[in-house]
């Protein structure tokens, strides 16, 4: 579809807002800063909806394209047998990226709005909104990029903003540390992303999504080998490493819980709704690549399932509400990877959308609670807040029902679609994986879903029910948040409640899965081996029962505060509780196995190489030598101009001696080779170098024959006489009319 729709404005508007707020925001009033930030995102949202409407009116394969500028952005000529590289700064909006754009701009706008109240008293108001806008722009570039490098720009951009916003209150060391941790862990993943990109290019000579999706590229990816696997396998795994970094999967998830050091709306926008889903988006975008080798898909689905379960167990024991939500996010991202890993791409992306709503809502709700309790985070010190904060409480309940997967809230449909996809995951093409892999992933996901319901309602009951467990000052001060905060909560709650109906399972009605109809025909091959309606009904029933069981357990244990039963369970399993409460000591393991050795190495490099070798020996050593030499040679400076001139003379003479051609001035030495009466004369000192010029030689053999004149230095002569003869060589430099000669006696037998 060719239109001149200004697609480039969608990322540029928030970027312009970021530029204004970061450069001149200090001179604008707080209201002005907030207005610029919110308006730029709102305008991007309007454009995004307009563009999506254009797609909606066209056939499913319709796309919108745009470029930031004409001509190549990156250009490299062909070398080493690898094709030439032409990358344009191009944008591509198809139905998949349209979904992402709508989520980013809509949820992003709500969070901007919420932030205007939440960050009201922060002295770096403009910096906060500048970063938030910068993030929105980078995220939009990520999803709109029409090639891997453009996406990578956004990928790195959101990583940078994540770092800046986690460490937003950098005057506290722990926050700055959390920012660094997020950045460095993400570098590990980004390195994998880059290597994957290079490998793909080496096989296909292109990085644009549309070219990569062509049959020709897929065949090349499949059949070009790297080491003992096809490029598709290696590049797919490397790209997945990138996804595990950005989307916080095992084993690179460790940065996300620490990222909660940032302001709560940031956690909602970046570390729940948008940035952390970039890995899921990337896999959906490049699904044709990951499908080439089913092994890669199985790895993705397994890692997703393990992460979902692993993070959910940690979530059960955490006390700070944001940590619970952080581990919940890691776990839910695992669900999304189960979806894209079992080829249920639409389910994975659908869960991404619904999760963006209910998890952003949960974080904003948590922010509202902390706002009311002067920053208190520990759920064991809350309780009974339903009386003080009705809007927060009801919306929070909706989000909890949505994430737990209770009909008819959004999470029910998306999680069910993922679990159904896992159940029917076809492993027939993968002889090396057990045939029950899909079912195993299903059961792991189901247990994670049970724990999700349990820990979310544990948090809900501890916060809003029972008696308040903090001090009474905090209780007296607790209040409902202002409208700028509650309005986004309500809108997100409506989304969390209603969005699920966009993706109704086929079991209800075969035409009701609007989300699948929007995405699948254009972007993905339709799933083969759909389950029978009866199986779908059974899976939904099981999922609902499991979620209900989780909620019921949480109700029994935490409805009236922490029940004695809960304490008893904890005390009955002290070791297990300790391991889980300490997050399996993963951070400590990384600390001792990676961080400390690297720090020691860095210390050695600092003290040994930098301080000792470079600074002391090289830098100060060379200064010392120069100083010493200077102290010595200063006595040569007599101030006597005549000595200087003598030095100039000697120097000039030396230069001439080295470079001049002495052949014409110092005589004409030569060699004689004699065999009886035959002699060969070879003159030396052939001039060479810049002053070289042809000489004229004259050979006089001293036997009465006329001298031989020639311009080459070698001559042969046969003597017809005997006895001693005087052999003379004359050399003439015709240019300067300089002659020289040499002679010697030869004895002719």
């Amino acid at each position: 579809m060719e239109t001149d729709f200004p697609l480039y404005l969608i990322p540029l508007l928030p970027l312009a807002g970021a530029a204004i707020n970061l450069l001149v925001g200090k001179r604008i009033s707080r209201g002005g800063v907030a207005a610029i930030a919110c308006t730029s995102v709102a305008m991007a949202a309007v454009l995004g909806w307009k563009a999506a409407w254009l797609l909606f009116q066209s056939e499913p394969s319709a796309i919108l394209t745009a470029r930031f500028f004409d001509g190549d952005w990156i250009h490299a000529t062909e070398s080493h047998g690898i094709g030439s590289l032409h990358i344009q700064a191009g944008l591509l909006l198809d139905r998949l990226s349209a979904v992402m754009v709508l989520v980013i701009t809509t949820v992003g706008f709500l969070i901007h709005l919420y932030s205007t109240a939440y960050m009201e008293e922060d002295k770096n108001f403009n910096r906060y909104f500048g970063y938030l806008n910068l993030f929105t722009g980078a995220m939009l570039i990520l999803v709109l990029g029409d090639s891997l490098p453009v996406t990578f720009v956004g990928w790195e951009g959101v990583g940078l903003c994540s770092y800046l916003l986690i460490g937003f209150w950098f005057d506290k060391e722990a926050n700055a540390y959390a920012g660094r941790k997020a950045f460095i862990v993400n570098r590990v993943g980004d390195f994998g992303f880059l290597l994957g990109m290079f490998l793909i290019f080496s096989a296909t000579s292109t990085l644009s999504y549309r070219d990569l999706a062509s049959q020709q590229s897929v065949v090349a990816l499949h059949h070009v080998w790297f080491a003992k696997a096809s490029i598709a396998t290696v590049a797919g795994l490397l790209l997945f490493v990138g996804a595990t970094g950005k989307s916080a999967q095992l084993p690179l998830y460790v940065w996300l819980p620490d990222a909660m050091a940032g302001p709560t709306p940031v956690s909602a926008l970046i570390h729940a709704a948008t940035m952390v889903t970039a890995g899921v988006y990337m896999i959906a975008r490049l699904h044709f690549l990951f499908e080439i080798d089913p092994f890669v898909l199985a790895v993705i689905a397994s890692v997703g399932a393990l992460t979902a379960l692993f993070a959910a167990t940690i979530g059960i024991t955490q006390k700070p509400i944001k940590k619970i939500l952080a581990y919940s996010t890691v776990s839910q991202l695992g669900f999304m990877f189960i979806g894209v890993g079992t080829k249920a791409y639409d389910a994975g992306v659908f869960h991404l959308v619904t999760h963006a709503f209910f998890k952003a809502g949960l974080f904003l709700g948590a922010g509202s609670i902390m706002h009311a309790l002067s920053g208190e985070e520990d759920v064991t010190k809350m309780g009974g807040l339903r009386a003080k904060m009705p809007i927060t409480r009801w919306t929070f309940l909706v989000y909890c029902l949505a994430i737990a997967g209770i009909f008819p809230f959004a999470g029910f449909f998306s999680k069910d679609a993922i679990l159904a996809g896992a159940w029917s995951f076809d492993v027939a093409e993968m002889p090396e994986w057990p045939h029950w892999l899909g079912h195993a992933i299903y059961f792991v996901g189901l247990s994670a879903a049970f724990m999700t319901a349990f820990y979310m309602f544990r948090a809900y009951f501890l916060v809003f029910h029972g008696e308040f467990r903090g001090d009474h000052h905090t209780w007296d001060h607790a209040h409902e948040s202002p409208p700028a905060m509650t309005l986004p909560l309500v809108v997100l709650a409506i989304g969390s409640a209603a969005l699920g109906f966009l993706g109704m399972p086929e079991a209800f009605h075969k035409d009701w899965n609007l989300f699948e109809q929007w995405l699948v025909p254009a972007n993905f091959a339709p799933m083969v081996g759909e389950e029978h309606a009866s199986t779908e009904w059974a899976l939904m029933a099981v999922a609902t029962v499991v979620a209900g069981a989780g909620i019921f357990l949480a109700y029994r244990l935490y409805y009236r505060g922490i029940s004695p039963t809960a304490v008893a369970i904890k005390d009955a399993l002290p070791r297990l509780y300790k391991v889980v409460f300490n997050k399996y000591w993963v951070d400590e393991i990384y600390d001792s196995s990676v961080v400390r050795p690297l720090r020691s190495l860095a210390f050695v490099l600092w003290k040994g190489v930098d301080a000792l070798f470079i600074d002391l020996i090289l830098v100060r050593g060379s200064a010392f030598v120069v100083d010493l030499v200077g102290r010595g040679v200063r006595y040569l400076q007599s101030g006597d101009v005549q000595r200087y001139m003598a030095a100039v003379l000697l120097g000039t003479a030396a230069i001439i001696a080295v470079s001049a051609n002495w052949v014409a001035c110092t005589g004409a030495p030569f060699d004689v080779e004699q065999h009886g009466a035959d002699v060969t004369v070879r003159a030396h000192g052939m001039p060479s170098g810049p002053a070289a010029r042809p000489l004229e030689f004259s050979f006089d053999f001293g036997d009465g024959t006329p001298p031989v004149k020639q311009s080459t230095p070698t001559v042969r002569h046969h003597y017809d006489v005997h006895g001693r003869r005087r052999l003379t060589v004359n050399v003439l430099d015709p240019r300067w009319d300089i002659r020289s000669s040499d002679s010697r006696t030869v004895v002719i037998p």
Partner: protein
Amino acid sequence: MIPVDHYLLVAGLLFAIGVVGVLLRRNALIVLMSIELMLNAANLTLLAFGRARGDSNFQALAFLVVAVAAAEAAVGLAIVVGIFRNRHTTNLDELTLMKH
């Protein structure tokens, strides 16, 4: 015709006398005159080669050297006069302000 090496010999002698004068004489005026001697040795060489090769460009170059020598003499003398006014001497051994 006198061969070119005879001229070169004379020029070399002149140049050597000039060098010795520059390096050994203490009077700045004599040093300046010795420099003139060296310049004229160079001029003689130019003219000798110019004659040997029948090329008038060498003579033009010699005139250029004469002009440079005149300018050098003017500036050099002015400096010597200036120094004499300040320091009441033209003895180079006493003019060692630039030492360490």
